[in-house]
């Protein structure tokens, strides 16, 4: 290569105690390119990028920017070297304006006004050059997630970043917003900036990157030009064995109605409707997928169905037993055969400080297998947990280990083991593969299909369109708290769902 790479990592090695997070990682990112970094959870992607951005310091190894070695001990050094980072969870101050957020950290003096005026001119120039239109005087909290992300990018550019790292940038975006982001990244590339995108979505890697690096267990296992590879080859490189993300499954044979929701409405504390006129008949032996961008009423829906939240209006019935009118809460609903894998595992699904075995009985602490007369039978519980771990291939197989010591995929398998283990007739599943590695995704999907075939009624809420498409027998699309369309499996395509998610109605409810 004639010119030096914009960013070069040489033999980066990093340990956290016993965990070898990065093993001698070498990576060269050409200037003016979009480089993808993929790998399963825990493969070391985030550690590597945090080293580049100065959150961590490598044990050994060297970072070079434009061919010159740089010493990066903290984010300020990274920014000075021309590296900017957009985190998955935005680092913005909600009640500051866009302008204030952008100049935060580079105010240029004790008096804000002078710096702000200069910043305004500069930002307007950047906005013009890159098509990054953002209302500078709007408070950040009033902006959509897509716009907030633009503020982050704008901020990095304002700090003169020539290398931009994006961590899972599309996790919170609609497909349309993601397309807009990609268009922006292409402009940045044309202008000679370098982009590194960290993601687990193979589709995005294929769509936007020039080269891609695959990490597995902390080491680079594969690096190639994107044009020379395929999603399947990348997935195999990530997992280290062949995986099938698309698998054959028989058509559903829907049976009797198991869970019915009628005219359910949820209003929040301010009286804003979060869920409007929701109707559903969920039948035995089918998977109904609920698609939509996060925050469009799906969480409220799951909470109402599970009994965590009371609806403002409407009724939910299990079989022909009304639940809301009788005031039946999660405990009774569980006993009646309604299991729930919550969307946010760490917030609802597990107690982080508890061991695996203690988490395996959350909600089922009165279960006859491990309790009698108010007492917990520790020995029986341990055996039960060991059996579940073997059945669900949870690693490491140690019931006494804290739940947070397991990877996201293994945590999720434990939650599934718990909820499926109760032999439910209805299973509510929220984001079953969030923060879960590909190997575990395959496992979880197969379990869900098997459960459906065994006659369980499953409601699947997911923001991952791929997941909805590969599992659902019917798809409900939600936007702004409403079902904006329903598609049969055969009619459900990414485009149609994407359009509905963006609020384009008129696709007809069949």
């Amino acid at each position, binding site marked *: 290569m004639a010119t030096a790479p914009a960013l070069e990592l040489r033999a980066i090695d990093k340990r*956290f105690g016993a965990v070898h997070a990065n093993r001698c990682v070498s990576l060269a990112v050409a200037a003016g390119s979009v480089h993808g970094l993929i790998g399963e959870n825990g493969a070391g992607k985030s550690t590597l990028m945090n080293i580049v951005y100065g959150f961590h310091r490598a044990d050994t190894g060297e970072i070079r920017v434009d061919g010159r070695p740089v010493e990066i001990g903290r984010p300020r050094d990274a920014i000075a070297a021309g590296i900017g980072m957009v985190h998955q969870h935005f680092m913005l101050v909600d009640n500051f304006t866009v302008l204030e957020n952008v100049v935060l950290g580079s105010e240029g003096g004790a008096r804000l006004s002078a710096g702000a005026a200069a910043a305004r001119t500069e930002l307007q120039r950047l906005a013009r050059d890159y098509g990054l239109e953002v209302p500078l005087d709007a408070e950040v909290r009033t902006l959509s997630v897509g716009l907030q992300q633009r503020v982050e990018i704008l901020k990095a550019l304002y700090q003169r970043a020539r290398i931009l790292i994006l961590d899972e940038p599309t996790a919170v975006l609609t497909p349309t917003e993601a397309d807009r982001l990609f268009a922006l990244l292409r402009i940045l590339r044309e202008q000679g900036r370098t982009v590194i995108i960290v993601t687990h979505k193979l589709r995005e890697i294929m769509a936007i990157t020039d080269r891609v690096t695959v990490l597995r267990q902390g080491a680079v296992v594969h690096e190639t030009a994107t044009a020379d590879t395929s999603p399947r080859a990348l997935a195999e490189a990530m997992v280290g064995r062949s995986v099938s993300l698309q698998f054959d499954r028989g058509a559903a044979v829907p049976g009797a109605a198991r869970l019915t929701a009628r005219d359910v409405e949820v209003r929040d504390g301010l009286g804003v409707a979060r869920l409007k006129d929701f109707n559903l008949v969920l039948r035995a032996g089918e998977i109904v997928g609920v698609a939509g961008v996060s925050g469009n009423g799906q969480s409220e829906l799951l909470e109402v169905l599970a009994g965590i939240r009371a609806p403002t209006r409407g009724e939910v019935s299990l079989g022909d037993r009304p639940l809301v009118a009788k005031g039946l809460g*999660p405990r009774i609903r569980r006993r009646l055969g309604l299991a*729930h894998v919550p969307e946010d595992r760490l917030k609802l699904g597990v107690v982080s400080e508890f061991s695996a075995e203690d988490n395996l009985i959350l909600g089922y*602490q009165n279960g006859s297998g491990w309790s009698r007369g108010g*007492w917990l039978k520790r020995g029986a519980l341990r055996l039960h947990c060991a059996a579940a771990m073997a059945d669900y291939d949870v690693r490491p197989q140690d019931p006494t280990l804290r739940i947070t010591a397991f990877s996201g995929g293994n945590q999720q398998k434990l939650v599934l083991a718990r909820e499926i283990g109760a032999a439910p007739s209805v299973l509510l599943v929220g984001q079953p593969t969030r923060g879960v590695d590909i190997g575990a995704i395959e496992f979880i999907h197969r379990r869900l299909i098997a459960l459906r075939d065994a006659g369980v009624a499953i409601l699947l809420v997911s923001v991952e369109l791929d997941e909805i498409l590969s599992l659902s027998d019917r798809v409900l699309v939600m936007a702004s708290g409403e079902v904006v369309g329903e598609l049969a499996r055969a009619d459900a395509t990414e485009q149609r769902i994407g359009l509905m998610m963006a609020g384009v109605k008129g696709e007809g409810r069949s």
Partner: protein
Amino acid sequence: MSAARRLPRWAEYTLLPALNLTVALLLSGVVVRVMGESPWAALKLMVAGAVGTQDAIGYTLFYATDFVFTGLAVAVAFHAGLFNIGGEGQAYVGGLGVGLVGLAAGAWPAWVAVPLGIFAGAVFGAAWAFIPAWLQAKRGSHIVITTIMFNFIASALMTYLLVNVLIKPGQQSPESREFGAHAWMPPMHELLARVGIPFAPSPFNLASGLAVAAGLGVWALLWRTQWGYALRVVGRNPAAAVYAGINPARITLGAMLLSGALAGCLGVNELMGSQHRLLLDFPEGAGFVGIAVALMGRNHPLGIVLAAILFGALYQGGSQISFDLPRINRDLVVVIQGLVILFCGALENLFRAPLAAGLARLRRTGGS
């Protein structure tokens, strides 16, 4: 990320508290020095005063018993996610229950009077905790605020009762008359003498056995029962508790009732075991020391028993210093306690990272 900062379990429970305690004592030594006494002499006096003789040990364990009750009270509430600062008031009002039984006991046999006194102490303590608990569970009033305020109310109430109602007629100081002798907790030196072990007389009494039993009970309840499981879920993750069908309000009430009952047992040790009458301000801050004891004992009953013995020794040894060294008064004990609380509680993590790094380095060089 946190892996580098994690200490091995044994170091977590032994090395770290020992280090924190040492630093607290070193600083106390500086204070003693500034006051013009020799820190070394003070330390020797303190150790001798706390564990040097049989009666010193008796006193140390007597005080430790108070702290076990209040420490357990704090820990039970803590596991339910509640910071009960009202141990002092609950102990005080619990003492009222103990006292009423003691005064009424008269000629009741001991096997009636003693259990009844324990029961009354627990019930009165629990009742005093119930109101803040109810306000927290049903109205969202913060339990830290309400329990603090209930300490003052308890103090005012008890003063009123002792000055106006329960005072022994024809007497100046606000104290009740002596309890019936059957409502006295048997002293340990008598019990030991009965099995042929001579032990110097001290207020150390059978209530210490109750405290140990309470510790075992709390342990079994929290880690071996469904209710304890539910309580810990509520304390760690209330949202997950709701998801699991556990009612946090009911757990809040139950945990605070138990917490108050444990604090209320302090009167069993102080009043039935030692004073044998009801008197003003008998908890003497043990309710607050319980917070430090629970902190230092990591809210685990075994840790609490050990921390309570340490604080008992500090208390007893500290009073010995103030007897023997003229320039030092009893408040030094409070200073030392404060420093111990500071280093074991507030600054608990101060030495964690360096210690973890040091141990990791040791292991690496040792292993390779």
